[in-house]
């Protein structure tokens, strides 16, 4: 630890203005603040003491909350491959997990390298500190794409969303749309053939380092939502809750997501108001469509399938892009649930609606807030004129 401190102290003159490696200032700064809590003390005219919480801690807790879903996602990738090849009976747990790990890891690496690379460059250019927001986006992105997404597509999509959805607005805290969902939306609309539900995208099809199986190209495994869009009801809701169904890498297991959700709610990083109202909105709308006979799925199926849980727990609750007023969070969450189920049932093109619902409500969040802030403003204005 002391050696590390000494190392940073030694290289500091080199990265300062005019130093040999000034171009790497943001990189060194980033690593130094990760190794040590900054020793900077508060200035005159400010609070002299501070709470120990900072955005690094908040972001790392979101990443920790994502770990159960990620690990299960890796296992499920292997499970689906072996299931498709019909060799599940001969495979051990380690085979399945290791295969999934090897399939998912390159995506995580690509996402982080591209995204953080851009963040470092922008931070250097603006002369600011690295912002931690991409730590979360970088792990979210591989979890919400199909396992067969080519790495080059992922790289382009990540670059697109980090630059155009985040940095041009001013970085973490200023963006309107959730960068991870913009990545997915970019892939979804630019490369529909690798992103749509009834094709052969959801199950890894090739061996990796001798692990896994080559599945014939003609094999197709639709997600339960894809099947529901064609009129097939869900038969195995037990597996849907456990998560052993085809789907995007991190979204399938309700249990793993729930573990993360509990951590987020307990630490207060995610708002329970948003999360709860997404489920309420989805359940009520699902119930409505169920009673009208428009969907083969029951209201509870709507909640456990596809990206509903994942979106409700990790995406809708993003504090930056969601509504910021406390009452607004109820409306914002509720409408996400409503729109997500509505897109699923009423739109013939897309079997899944969570991504579109959250992006749409990201756009409307400032409007919802506006109404509540304006009511406070009106109250004050009225008070002034009464006398």
């Amino acid at each position, binding site marked *: 630890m002391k050696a590390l401190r000494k190392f940073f102290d030694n290289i500091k003159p080199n990265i300062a203005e005019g130093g040999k490696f000034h171009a790497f200032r943001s990189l060194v700064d980033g690593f130094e603040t990760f190794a*040590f*809590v900054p020793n900077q*003390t508060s200035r005159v005219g400010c609070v*002299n003491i501070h709470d120990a919480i900072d955005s690094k801690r908040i972001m790392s*807790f979101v990443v920790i909350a994502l770990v159960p879903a990620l690990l299960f996602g890796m296992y499920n990738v292997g499970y689906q491959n072996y299931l498709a090849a019909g060799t599940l009976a001969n495979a051990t747990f380690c085979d399945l997990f290791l295969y999934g790990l090897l399939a998912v890891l390159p995506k995580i690496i690509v996402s982080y390298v591209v995204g953080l690379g851009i963040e470092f460059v922008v931070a250097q250019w603006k002369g600011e500190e690295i912002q931690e927001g991409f730590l979360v986006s970088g792990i979210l992105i591989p979890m919400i794409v199909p396992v067969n997404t080519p790495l080059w597509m992922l790289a382009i999509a990540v670059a697109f969303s980090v630059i155009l959805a985040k940095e041009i607005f001013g970085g973490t805290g200023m963006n309107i749309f959730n960068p991870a969902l913009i990545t997915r939306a970019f892939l979804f609309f630019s490369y529909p053939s690798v992103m749509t539900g009834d094709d052969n995208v959801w199950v890894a099809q090739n061996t990796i380092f001798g692990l896994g199986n080559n599945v014939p190209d003609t094999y197709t495994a639709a997600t339960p939502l894809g099947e529901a869009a064609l009129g097939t009801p869900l038969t195995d809701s037990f597996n849907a809750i456990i998560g052993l169904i085809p789907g995007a890498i991190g979204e399938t297991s309700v249990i793993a997501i729930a573990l993360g959700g509990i951590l987020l709610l307990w630490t207060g990083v995610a708002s329970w108001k948003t999360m709860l109202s997404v489920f309420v909105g989805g359940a009520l709308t699902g119930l409505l469509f169920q009673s009208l006979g428009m969907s083969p799925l029951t209201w509870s199926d709507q909640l456990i399938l596809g990206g509903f849980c994942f979106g409700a727990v990790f995406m809708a609750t993003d504090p930056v892009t969601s509504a910021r007023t406390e009452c607004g969070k109820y409306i914002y969450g509720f409408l996400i649930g409503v729109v997500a189920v509505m897109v699923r049932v009423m739109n013939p093109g897309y079997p899944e609606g969570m991504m579109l619902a959250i992006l749409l409500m990201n756009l409307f969040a400032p409007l919802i807030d506006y109404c509540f802030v304006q009511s406070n403003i009106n109250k004050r204005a009225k008070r002034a004129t009464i006398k």
Partner: protein
Amino acid sequence: MAKVIKLRKGLDVNLKGKAILETTQVKCPGEYALIPDDFTGVKPKVVVKEGDAVLAGDALFVDKLHPEVKFVSPVSGTVSLVERGERRKLLSIRVQASETQEYRVFDQKDDVKALLMESGLFAFFRQRPYDVVANPEDKPKAIFVSAFNSMPLSQDFEYALKGYETEFQAGISALSKIAKVYLGVNNKQTNPALTVAKDCEVNIFDGPAPAGNVGVQINHLCPINKGEVVWTMGAEAVIFVGTLMTTGKVNMTRTVALAGSEVKSPCYAKMLVGQKLNTLLEGQIDKSKSLRIINGNVMTGVKTSSEGFLGAYSTEINVIPEGDHADEFMGWIAPRFNTYSSHRSYFSWLLGKKKEYTFDARIKGGERHMIMSGEYDRVFPMDIFAGYLVKAIIVGDIDRQEALGIYEVAPEDFAIAEFVDSSKLELQRIVREGLDILRKENA
């Protein structure tokens, strides 16, 4: 029976080194100083020269815009230094105290306001909007006095009041001749001089910090609209007014709390405004350590040194470690059991409210844009959207600041919000600058 107002929002932080209720004697002679910067918003004009003899209560400087508002010497003696900084900015006026203290005696007048201006006690009025020294031309709609401090390590006013009950009541009665007086009392205070004070409306506030801030009390009882002015006065200064009313003399002696984790025996001491701090800190701190001595409260006070002087509004001196060489490893993920946080990602919620924490002056993070929502509102017990107001100030949108209620706030009201902020924004400085700009625009 007084109205009880229950506040839910806010946060009490349990800091180590609370002052025990015992008053020690400190040495009095030496140099005293009046610092014009303590009186926010005043343009000082010096009316004495070095070498002049002054009595306690003689003016040292006046406000250029309102020369009738005087700022007086706390002691009698000779003016030893008129200290100026860059561009001849007046930094302090120092008075070398004489052996025996002589007081200027003021004639009692019916016009309380004129008497207060003449005697220098008007300088202890602050006004909302802008949180500056009050303008004597205004007609305030109310005067607010908060009889308790809710910030951590702050002075217990009920203890400081002991023995001054009649002066306090005389002060309140005098203020009530200017405008209606509202006295904010804490639910734990029992002294009848507070709970059944006369000539004022007593309201009881029950809740965590910042319930003791007058801003919070104004917002709940008599919110300020555009064009209205409310004056506020510290409870200690009300005793000064009462002393003036009963004896005709200006005596700015107050009971100051010396508190903080780095103070050897935290206690109270009687000190004059402008008294040198080393008279109080002698033997109480370890000078070899890197310490932060704060003139005022840890939440709102200003960093000073042991060569500093007791601020005009300071009711406590807090001493904490500076912490600039802490080198804490991997703080973003380490459990940090001994570190306090109101956030559940740390373990301080497990260790109960009785555990006392040592804080150093580190920011403990990097400054970011506002990321989390609702962080400020959780500890901001006013009917104002704090986050939106801060954003309006940052972008300089004056119309929106007005609409969102900037006239009702002072920097100190944002102290707890700044403490809990995970984005580490300097809220008090932002609000201070916003108020200054607004005041200039409206002038």
